[in-house]
């Protein structure tokens, strides 16, 4: 058991390393010019050498500041007729590119070793010190930015998941054990409804109809949301006003997940009830209800636990839409905005955080699964 556990834990840094490589690779292949982005955010980013806009010196200065003049990776494979160091300034780069492409030679790749003096290495070195760098947009520390956003999202996620799981599981069991078929059918349809309604639609409808007096004052049941009242002092004041902000989003997320969880619970229970041991229990004299709640439940709950571990990262990612609609400064909105402006430091920070959370939660769920089902314990890596 311990061996299994340590093998799993050792995977985590390996996976994180691969994620870092994937993101780095993607960030270098997406058609963006980071230096231009920085220049544009700082002043004019018009491409000329004259009166206004940036000069070549400006460009190279910023490139050097951000290590963008170094090669990308530890090694490189280049055709033998390409020069060793490439130009950085866009117009120089284009010229060089065109010139080289014109020579239609087939040359074999030559291995070029860059050593530790490359962007990837320096970036990793910073990360290992805990320095995620600064965001290109506002110059703030990435860790601060992410921490602020994280607080919002984690509250939203944890409360929604807790509520939806507790309610969903109860609902699933309820519809299996109750004698009132019509109520069970009703809840079944309700679950379908909640799961199938697109979240952004649901959220927008709630926002339009239920927060203002437009359609009659009786619909004005949810608090108007905008931002936290900055004049509120003290813990309870802040808690109350952020609670207001989060009420509707939590409601929407919970209801959506609820539908899914209760359906899953019900189908999982159906599977268990079909198994031989359930029939044995019934023939032993247990009531249907207690068979389900005592025995069937324990086995049916396991796939749901697996769901729990995938629900956390899923909800974090899926919160993009909710956070945009309800104006919550959380992780989803942060990663969306950062990718749009190619602020890779922030993007990686968020992905890193989510990756750690995901790995840990999957680890826990796999352990639980392996603990309960010895058949798959040995093989699942």
């Amino acid at each position, binding site marked *: 058991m311990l061996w299994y556990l340590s093998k799993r834990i050792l*995977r985590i840094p*390996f*996976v*994180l390393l*691969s*994620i870092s490589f994937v*993101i780095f690779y*993607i960030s*270098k*292949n*997406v*058609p963006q010019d980071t230096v231009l982005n920085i220049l544009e955010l700082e002043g004019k980013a018009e491409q000329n050498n004259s009166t206004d806009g940036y000069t070549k010196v400006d460009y190279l200065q910023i490139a050097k500041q951000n290590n963008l003049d170094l*090669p*990308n*990776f530890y090694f*490189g*494979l*280049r055709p033998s007729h*390409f020069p060793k160091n*490439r130009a950085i300034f866009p117009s120089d*780069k284009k010229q060089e590119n065109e010139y*080289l*492409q014109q020579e239609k030679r*087939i040359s074999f*790749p030559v291995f070029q070793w860059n050593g530790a003096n490359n962007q990837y290495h320096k970036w990793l070195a910073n990360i290992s010190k805990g320095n995620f760098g600064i965001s290109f947009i506002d110059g703030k520390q990435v860790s601060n930015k992410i921490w602020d956003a994280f607080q919002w999202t984690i509250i939203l996620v944890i409360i929604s998941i807790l509520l939806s799981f507790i309610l969903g599981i109860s609902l699933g069991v309820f519809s299996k054990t109750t004698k009132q078929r019509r109520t069970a059918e009703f809840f079944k349809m309700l679950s*379908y*409804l909640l*799961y*199938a*309604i*697109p*979240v*952004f*639609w649901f959220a*927008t*409808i709630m926002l339009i109809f239920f927060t203002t007096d437009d359609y009659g004052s009786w619909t004005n049941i949810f608090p108007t949301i905008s931002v936290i009242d900055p004049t509120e002092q003290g813990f309870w004041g802040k808690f109350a006003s952020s609670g207001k902000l989060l009420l509707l989003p939590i409601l929407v997320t919970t209801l959506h997940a609820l539908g899914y969880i209760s359906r899953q619970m019900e*189908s999982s229970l*159906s*599977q268990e009830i*079909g198994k031989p041991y359930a029939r044995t229990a019934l023939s032993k004299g247990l009531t249907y209800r207690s068979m389900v709640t005592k025995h069937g439940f324990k086995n049916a709950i396991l796939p749901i636990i697996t769901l729990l571990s*995938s629900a956390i*990262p899923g909800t*974090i*990612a899926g919160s993009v*839409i909710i956070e945009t609609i309800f104006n919550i400064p959380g992780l989803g909105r942060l*990663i*969306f905005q950062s*990718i*749009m402006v190619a602020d890779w430091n922030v*993007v990686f920070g*968020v*992905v890193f955080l*989510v*990756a750690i959370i995901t*790995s840990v939660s*999957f680890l826990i769920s796999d352990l639980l699964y392996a603990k309960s089902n010895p*058949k*798959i314990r040995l*093989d699942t*890596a």
Partner: protein
Amino acid sequence: MQIIKRIFRFIRGRKRGRIALWIILSLFIISLLAPFIANDIPLVCSSKNGIEFPVLSKLWNGSSQYSDACTWTVKPLIPYSQKSIDIQNGRFVSPLEGQVVSSLRYRHWLGTDALGRDSLAGLLYGSGIALRIGLFAALIAFLIGIFIGTASGYFGNNSLKLNFVQLIILFLCVLLLGYQLSFGFFFGYEKDSMWEVGASIIILLSGTIGFSKTQNLLQQNIRFPLDNIVLWIFEVYKSIPNIFFILVLLSIFAKPGITSLVLTIAFVIWPIIGRYTRAEILKLKEEDFIKSAETSGASSWNIITKHLLLNAIGPALVSFAFSFSAAILLEASLSFLGLGLAVEEVSWGSMLSEVKNNYRAWWLALFPGLAIFLVISALNYIGELIGEYFDQN
């Protein structure tokens, strides 16, 4: 195949199953017939050049030219296509209020959007987009997921044996392919000619085919840890939020459109199917009938196709149905955010996003949302019924 027939019969046996099947069927039919039901060019035009069929010729070769002077025409039921701009009725005209139209035939029965595009036509054409994107994305994801999931589940870490030569060939091919694809990455240049990529792919393919046919030249066999690699891929996928892949992939494609969306969604969905399939295969592998087939000497290929897949088809179909609905939902969400489709295209998601500009346009929120909801629930229900069918057997 008989299984599919049996599944259909099962679904039709349930009342709600019938409704769900009807919904999906109507989705197909509407998406095929949309250009004939709602279009701004006539179906039949009789002029001095003879009888022409403008709608058909537009579908056939994209040209919407037809002689202007038609002596008599047969127009489609709804005289607008989803892109027809009727600026007189711009600014979000409601279906309930008076409209500036020449006759009742030209009335916008479900309202318009900011530019006066007909909402009903948008619904009809949007079904085609939802269907195409959902179906193809789910299909591609399904095929890739099944292939990789089965391979990984069956071969595990220990079964796939390659000899030394095959391993070297594989390694070189991967390196070459990687070099071609990552040329820009390693050296910061963009390569114009892709023929080298093509050559590498061909070499890789022949290498792969080679390894299944080569005789064992050297006796030393090295176990190829397929399962570990696949699991590593799955973990990386799980940890990175979907939105990241989606945004990045969409920015890579030069022209936004259905193709880019299909590929992006398929890219994001296949690990889910793969993981699910792998779990199922793992369970099935331990079953007795597989073990007996193995001991009786059937080749891996036989076992996989004849026994494993047949039994795993159930859960696979369930996941297909669910990924179909997930793909439709994903497309709607992306169109809602303004990503993926070209500016002229109208889909259910893009109609929903117009509500953001004008809350009063409830018809733009209600009808497309309802359509998405119906299709998704129908697909989900069908998926569940398939699951039930296989649970019972």
